[in-house]
């Protein structure tokens, strides 16, 4: 029996009336919670609370338990004296590079590759990375991260990224190495480039944050504020300048669920191994190079060469050139070195901001290179411009505020 179109539709209606039962979809508790987390009114307080929890657990685990609790003891009371007594050639330059200052009584000050280098990499940063990535992975798998992305989406769009760029940004607070890899989730080349550059320049990594907390806790808030503001300003500028598209966000927001052990384990391993395999060797290499530069006196020459730029344009003492060069290789140590130079607290803020933005650490450098040499070159150009402008701007603000 052949039906025409209208008849067919009638038949369909009849069948469906018998077979299909309509009901209203009732939100379950999970759905309601999910909705709460996404809408700005409730979502923002929740986000603030989640971040608080994140930060608190981070500092309790990494600071109180890992580093101060056990690592400092292992390194300063056992490893360092053992190295200092058993490593051959005390007084020679090789000893100095590997073990560092023989009179040092803690690993942080020794500056040797195997002492400071290992201590910072394993004793400080590894603990931070572990807890950081564990919590991040849990938040992702529980389903919270996509909601956070949606919340932030509007804001980030203004700088040409979509909400999901929050993931590399947060990752970068741990270590730039996995973060740069994570930029691959962004769709266009323009977005990836903006993200990588902003990460490398404005987001301080876990090591930097840790040292900042240790060495300049009072002014840390202002420094971070400057960095965040810079992140947005330059994101906006880059978005306008660089050709390319920024598509709308379209992500699948999963319901809240329990994370699976296997998933968490895999993600953790993937990210932590990135750090261990790439960042750590570079941290050690960085130590070697910095020590060599100091021994050969190249640092002094550079201090004199760049002196005027530093004092006039940025308004910081010329001794900061040493830490600034060291910042290429070890940003965290650079901050520590800065703290010992006499300067006003505004100068300190400027210097730390400079150190944070002025060069990605060697590991990040390599990661961006892996993504493409053109990207790297572009990033460097942006970097030079940013350092010059923003550093000068920070100084200018200081002058206007009367504190420079």
């Amino acid at each position, binding site marked *: 029996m052949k039906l025409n179109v209208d008849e067919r539709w009638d038949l369909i209606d009849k069948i469906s009336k018998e077979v299909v039962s309509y009901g209203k979809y009732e939100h379950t508790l999970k759905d309601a919670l999910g*909705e709460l987390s996404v809408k700005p009114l409730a979502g923002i307080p*929740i986000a*603030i609370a989640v971040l608080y929890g994140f930060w608190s657990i981070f500092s309790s685990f990494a600071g109180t338990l890992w580093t101060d609790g056990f690592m400092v003891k292992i390194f300063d009371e056992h490893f360092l004296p053992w190295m200092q007594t058993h490593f051959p050639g005390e007084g020679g330059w090789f000893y100095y590079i590997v073990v560092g200052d023989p009179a040092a009584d803690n690993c942080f000050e020794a500056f040797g590759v195997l002492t400071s280098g290992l201590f910072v990499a394993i004793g400080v940063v590894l603990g931070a990375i572990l807890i950081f990535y564990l919590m991040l992975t849990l938040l992702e798998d529980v389903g919270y991260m996509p909601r956070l992305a949606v919340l932030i989406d509007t804001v980030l769009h203004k700088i040409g990224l979509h909400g999901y760029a929050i993931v590399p940004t947060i990752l970068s607070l741990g270590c730039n190495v996995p973060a740069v890899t994570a930029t691959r989730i962004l769709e266009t080349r323009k977005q990836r480039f903006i993200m990588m550059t902003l990460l490398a320049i404005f987001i301080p990594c876990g090591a930097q944050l840790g040292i900042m907390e240790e060495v300049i806790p009072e002014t840390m808030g202002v420094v971070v504020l400057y960095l965040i503001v810079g992140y947005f300003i330059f994101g906006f500028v880059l978005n306008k300048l660089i050709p390319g598209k920024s598509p709308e966000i379209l992500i699948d927001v999963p319901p809240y669920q329990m994370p699976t052990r296997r998933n968490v384990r895999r993600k953790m391993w993937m990210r932590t191994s990135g750090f261990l395999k790439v960042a750590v060797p570079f941290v050690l290499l960085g130590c070697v190079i910095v020590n060599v530069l100091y021994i050969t006196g190249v640092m002094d020459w550079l201090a004199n060469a760049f002196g005027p730029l530093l004092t006039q344009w940025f308004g910081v003492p010329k001794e900061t050139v040493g830490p600034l060069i060291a910042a290429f290789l070890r940003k965290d140590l650079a901050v520590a070195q800065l703290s010992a130079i006499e300067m006003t607290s505004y100068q300190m803020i400027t210097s730390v901001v400079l150190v944070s933005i002025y060069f990605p650490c060697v590991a990040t450098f390599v990661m961006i290179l892996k993504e493409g040499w053109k990207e790297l070159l572009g990033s460097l150009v942006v970097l030079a411009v940013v350092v010059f402008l923003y550093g000068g701007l920070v100084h200018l603000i200081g002058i206007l505020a009367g504190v420079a």
Partner: protein
Amino acid sequence: MAKNKSSIYFGILGAVTLAFGIADLIVTIGGDSFTWGILEIPADPFRGGWGGLIVLFAGLFYLAGSKNLPEIHQLSKVVMGSVLIWIVAGTDIFAMITESIPGGGEGGWFNTLEGFFGTYAPPYAPAIFLLPFSLVVIYCVYRRK
């Protein structure tokens, strides 16, 4: 009846939580922590300021959700309020745990037994007092099922 009882309960809890949150912020701005017996309202910018803000939000969540409690969206607000309390209290407890294990600068690898227990001693922050009351919400959820 259940509806009324829970509404009143969370209404009161919400008000108390909100009060603690505000107190925390005031104390933080003032500068010195306030201790009364086993209660200590912290004054540092992180636990006092940021943490206090979250307790305040939790109070607001409770109050917003306390009317007509069985309704799913209202319940979710109350649950969220509890979650926020759990975050603040939980991180405080976690901090106690990480502090109690290592031996510290002078001691050996691990803390002594007295030192270990001593870390958990009073006074405590407000969120920890609110914690047991916030757990009631689990019961409410359970009963719905």
